[in-house]
């Protein structure tokens, strides 16, 4: 991110006797703040909107072939559970251990 603008503004602020000139920067933004008495100033530059949530899967996980039994409700259908007004049910036997 081009911060030359910040350098020019900082020089102007010093000329105008602003103090507590502070710069914070992140990957996609930079912020400069300063004050002079009761006056407070903020300059913020960014090149994208930052969303307050992120999520990602772990890429280093065991192969599916290593999994014999997972924690599950057999036959469970999440889309039906989300329909609160509709009654439904599921039943069945528990999975039996594999014969050795």
């Amino acid at each position, binding site marked *: 991110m081009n911060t030359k603008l910040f350098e020019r503004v900082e020089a102007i602020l010093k000329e105008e006797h602003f103090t507590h000139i*502070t710069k*914070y*920067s*992140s*990957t*996609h*933004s930079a*912020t400069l*703040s300063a004050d002079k008495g009761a006056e*407070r100033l*903020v300059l*913020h530059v*960014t090149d994208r909107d*930052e*969303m*307050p*949530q*992120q*999520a*990602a*899967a*772990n890429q280093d*996980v*065991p192969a599916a072939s*290593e*999994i*014999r*039994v*997972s*924690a*599950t*409700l*057999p*036959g*469970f*259908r*999440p889309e039906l*559970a*989300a329909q*609160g007004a509709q009654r439904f049910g599921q039943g069945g036997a*528990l*999975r*039996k*251990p594999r014969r050795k």
Partner: protein
Amino acid sequence: MPTLSQYWFQNGFFQGPFDVWNQPYPDGGWAWISGGSCAATLAWNRPDSEQAIDVASELNTPGTLSQIDNILGNSANRTSGLMAAGVFWPNVPYYSQNPGAHNNSDMLIRVYFNFHIGTPWYCSDANGDIDYYIFLYLDGSGHLQGYVDGWSYHYDGGGPFCTGSINDALNAGVPAGMSTVQTILDQALALLSGSTFSTLYYLPGSGTKAPGDTSENADTDVAIAVLP
């Protein structure tokens, strides 16, 4: 003695506040449970051989909390204990990135805690939660295994100018924390390494079998249940 457990969820299946009634009954005998108005209900016939592990209780030890706090470093403060909830795969935040990674009926354990990040005067402070999703399974030998399947975070605040620096800190710290959580998980699973099981499932809340009525919250605790 087997136990018939019925769970009444106030908000939705395997979510939020719920009541449970546990009714023990003799082998080959019968049991019934009456009453309860709710949004969803789950009845589970629990064999006497069931082992149930209360996840939140196991996690909230000084040693584990100290390891979790090291994930955050100086960038954020943990403001809650560790909480755990059973979630179906389609409800995991990164589900859309690879829906076929698990079956839709598979459940993961969401281990999470709240955090606070202070900001300069021109931004509001941020409050949110950091989440790790644990996938447990039985391997071909019947041993209980598990891994950290992914991570997420969400927060409110940080506006108008501080979400960039907050995200930078969280994007560095939260994924790196998966190794810490995996270490904690491995330590816990090592205690069961000498046992083999045929069935694995989750129960909402602590998994109590105490006869009678109990009220708990499925959003803050889950129990791992295994059968030999």
